[in-house]
């Protein structure tokens, strides 16, 4: 507790020191909020909620409205393969989508309320990212100080990485589009970020709640349990433990250390207990919610089953729809296993290599799963690009940043044009659109590879620097 308090004080003093930067942050954050409100109240004719980039079968709020309607008229919300989300989301967001009066008025009204929910979700996500960023930066400073590597020039910059990450998240066009375009992905992102925040600040119940909810809503955050355990066990990101050990012993490469970074099993146990409690709680809530017209089994089939078997082959920005539209039926199961185990295969090696940086590990997991998930939307890159900002200090030497930036801009402009060419003009075909999806996947691969390699390079650099310091 005492350490937490001192850290808090420190962060406060830090905040005061960077007052100018903080002012800049507030200004930009408020601008982002206002910009969103303007877009929400003047939606124009952009028709964002029907774009394939924004609304996938899982995230479309129109489908949610349909599910709510089915439920209201005493049917299973999963009847007719329209809705594939959580029954809890239906209970919370459903009433907002209800149509009360005549057609035109109610739709506008429902859209407005729906966008306000996503708007608040975005806002809270931004705040949580900023708080996580503070925490991460504190730890980073502390570990640098303990290694005698901190020099004054590093903290002279304007905004801290947490501020930048929050601003990147709030101003990212992907986030804005997902927010204005009535998709539920801001809510899912909120829970993922909540998980990371809870884990980074060591609040096990919060982390457990975030993880359970995120997993319940979109399944893929399930793999985040490993970074969360590591975060709670080891504490937030720090340079490799080898460094501290060698510092203790005054020599590099001496493995006979007495004092190791302690993995606190107590907190992890705490987390696991809370996780099981929250899961049971959520399951009970779900079963209450669905018991009238449906069952828990149907819920699992229609949500997780739908995600895992890639039933809906309508085009999206991912790579699976095209593949499973082309593949022969008798190979389908095989390739389903191959594609999903792609994500699973990467978990263990990455966890071993990056165990000293659990937050970054979480970022890598999120990026990989958003690349390989069955129904990706623009909400996914919004999340991992926002998290990328958290590691600004470590990734300062990242290669290809300009190339990646141009690639993301180019692909996100080209993709709607190709879709238009295929669907509305009829002069293109599915390959045109799929080509942009593949290019997008390639850019994500480059991003992941580059960020991981530059993070490892950063560790190596720290190692080299501390070795040279010790030799002096």
């Amino acid at each position, binding site marked *: 507790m005492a350490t937490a308090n001192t850290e808090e004080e420190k962060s406060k003093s830090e905040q005061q020191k960077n007052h100018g930067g903080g002012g800049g942050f507030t200004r930009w954050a408020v601008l982002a909020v206002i910009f969103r409100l303007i877009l929400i109240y003047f939606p124009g004719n952009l*028709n964002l909620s029907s774009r394939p980039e924004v609304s996938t079968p899982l995230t479309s709020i129109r489908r949610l409205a349909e599910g709510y309607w089915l439920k209201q008229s005493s049917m299973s919300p999963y009847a007719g393969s329209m809705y594939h989300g959580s029954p809890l989301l239906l209970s919370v967001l459903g009433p907002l989508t209800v149509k009360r009066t005549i057609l035109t008025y109610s739709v506008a009204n429902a859209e407005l309320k729906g966008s306000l929910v996503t708007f608040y979700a975005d806002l809270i996500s931004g705040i949580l990212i900023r708080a996580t960023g503070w925490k991460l930066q504190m730890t980073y400073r502390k570990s640098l100080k303990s290694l005698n590597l901190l020099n004054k020039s590093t903290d002279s910059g304007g905004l801290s990485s947490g501020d930048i990450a929050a601003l990147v998240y709030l101003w990212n066009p992907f986030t804005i589009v997902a927010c204005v375009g009535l998709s539920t992905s801001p809510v899912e992102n909120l829970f993922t970020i909540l998980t990371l925040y809870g884990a980074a600040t060591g609040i096990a119940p919060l982390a457990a709640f975030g993880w359970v909810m995120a997993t319940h809503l979109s399944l893929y955050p399930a793999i985040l349990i490993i970074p969360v355990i590591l975060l709670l066990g080891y504490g937030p990101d720090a340079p490799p433990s080898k460094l501290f050990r060698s510092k203790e012993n005054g020599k590099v490469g001496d493995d006979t250390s007495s004092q190791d970074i302690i993995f606190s099993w107590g907190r992890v146990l705490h987390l696991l207990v809370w996780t099981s409690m929250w899961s049971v709680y959520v399951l009970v809530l779900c079963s209450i919610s669905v018991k009238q017209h449906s069952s828990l089994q149907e819920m699992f089939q229609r949500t997780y089953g739908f995600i895992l078997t890639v039933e809906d082959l309508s085009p999206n920005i991912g790579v699976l729809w095209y593949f499973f539209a082309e593949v022969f039926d008798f190979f389908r199961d095989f390739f389903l296993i191959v594609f999903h185990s792609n994500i699973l295969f990467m978990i263990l090696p990455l966890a071993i290599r990056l165990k000293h940086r659990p937050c970054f590990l979480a970022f890598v997991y999120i990026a990989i799963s958003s690349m390989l998930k069955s129904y990706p939307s623009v909400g996914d890159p919004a999340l991992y690009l926002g998290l990328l900002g958290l590691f600004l200090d470590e990734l300062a030497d990242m290669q290809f940043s300009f190339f990646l930036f141009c690639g993301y801009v180019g692909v996100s402009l080209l993709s709607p044009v190709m879709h238009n060419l295929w669907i*509305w003009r009829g002069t293109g075909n599915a390959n045109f659109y799929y080509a942009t999806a593949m290019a997008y996947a390639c850019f994500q691969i480059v991003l992941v590879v580059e960020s991981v390699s530059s993070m490892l390079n950063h560790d190596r650099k720290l190692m080299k620097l501390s070795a040279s310091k010790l030799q002096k």
Partner: protein
Amino acid sequence: MAEVEKKEVAAATPPWKPKPRPIVRLGIVLISHSLLVSVVCCTAGVVALFLLPMLAKNTYISENALMPGSASSMLSNDDISEAERLAKDLTSLNSGAADAGIERRRVLAKYLSDLGVEVGYHKFEPHQNQFHPLHFFSSPDSGLSRENGSCSSYGINVVGIIRAPQADGKEAIVLVTPFNFRKNSSSEALSISIGYAVFSLLSRVTWLAKDIIWLVADSQYGEYASVASWLRDYHIPVFSASSSHNADSCFEGNNINLLREESLDRTEISSGFRRAGTMAAALVLKVTDVKGQLEDTLSVYAEASNGQMPNLDLINVVNYLAVHRQGLRVKVEKFLSVLRWEWIWVLGDTLNFIGKVAGSLNPEWKFGISTPDYVEGTATLANSLYRQALGIPTGPHGAFRDFQVDAITLEISPKVVYTNQGRRNEFILRSARLIEGVVRSVNNLLEKFHQSFFLYLLTSPAKFVSVGVYMIGFALLVAPLPLVAASLYVDANKPDPSSQGPKHKLQINFKPWKWLSAAKQVFTVHAWGVFVSLLPYFISQIPNSTPAAHSIIWFSLSTFGLLVLYLITKSHSKPQKGEWENLKSVTISVVFIGLLLMSVVNFATAQIGALVLVPACLLAQPLKLDIRDASLKSFLRIACNVFISFVAFPPVGFFVLKGVNEGFGDMDVGEFWTWLESLWAWNSATYIYIGMVHLPCWVLCLHILLHSC
């Protein structure tokens, strides 16, 4: 391109790998010789553009099911005389009378219902074209607004539908003849004759597999508006009770004549909107009087909005039937001024000579083309490029393309105005047989047109350049952009030997992120571009002002916006090393992305834009550096830069082009405004391109030129 850039950045990293992979080395070589590569590529790109008329292939009918001309025509003189009787009845009505229009419609409807086909009226309000800057990215119907305009002006189309006797009614072929019911025009009556002759034949034949719709479009508010609103009502039915009620009340309240007419014809004419199946193809038929022709000619217009073309097979069928069956001369529009350019003829001679020499060396090399053919091809190609680049449909057929229906306009012009009934009948017979043949071919189709090309440029009615050929020239032209961007980026971000501090300091210098400030500038300028392209929407609301005043307001507001931006973002710090290189690198990358996007949206615009923007961006370099250098090379570069940045300014470019085409006689500032207004009224992507890619990049190039490094 992307790979090259990647390789390039890899090259920029410190050389701890002694021997990079061959592909990386290739990239390094390309980037280190980017000047040479860009000169070679750009020249090759321009040369390839001028070679296109030579590389054009003869058209061929790709879809076997079409089988044009395999059946003999069934059209007889009886159909013609019946059609002529209709035309006489229509023209004999007193055009001065107020209800002549109504009367004509009734005569037409009478004739049609006598044929035993379904007849219907379609009422519409001519829509004012509205500004939808984001129309391109949304679906076609989303921008549609069904507001209650004034009920004072509306038009009425007459629609006849033949149901195919042995088909399920899921497909249809559309014939359109624009006709102004209020006016007497002999050529329009002639087109009605042709249409009616074909229609009456088709109402009797047994081989129909698709329904036939004949739309006599009321052209008093323009041909396009009537066809477009009919198509909209055809494809987007109104379910909401309130809006249809509005429309009805409008008509009922304002027009008693119409009511009378409806009550008269209630027995034969259905009151609801009549539909047939999905449209397989549409033909718009027009007859015009053009003086001084040697023979009967048929002009084909195909360009729809944003440079979209109908399937080439449709043009092929028309061309084949017109030339080989009916002996009409088929024409495609061309730039006549190109024919006057001396240097094109010289170029044609040269190419002809080279072809002959090559042919004498090896008889298998047959790429020669005769000089007149080359010049004609160039003139047609130039027109084809220009029409596609404008993005404005060249006729009522453009409305069909928005609903993915292949359509062309056939404009038939007789040699003389026929006074002799026999000659006139023969003309009608030939034209009607042409239409009959095309309908019969399309009738054979099993699926939508899909075999042949959608992306092509015409160099003559029977010759085309496909996307695979013209893309090569474009790719060569833009290939230097990523290369030069990469090499500039490397130069600007070279590790500075002087700043290499002692090793044990943890240096977080954000060097690789230096491009961010340049990106910020570029983004700001592009945001200004968006502002500039949205301005005309507000300016056009100002009542009672001339186009010239509009353009002056627009120009001054834009300049003012730019000045404000400049004052806000002006940095007082000393320019850093590599600043303008970074800026140029980002600018070039943005131009590359913009051109790539535009080449997908509208190739012709991208091609023309690349011809201007690519040299402007590649040559841009601070004038200060060149002046300091004071060599012949730098002097040349200054001259080129000044010239290009003068011409690349959109208004100047417009007036220069216009001057070259029509002579530098009377120039009006308002013309540019009128031109742009037509672009945005038609939702042309070219307008967006000019506002959001071309203009900002021009400003950035100017900024680089005047950079104080």
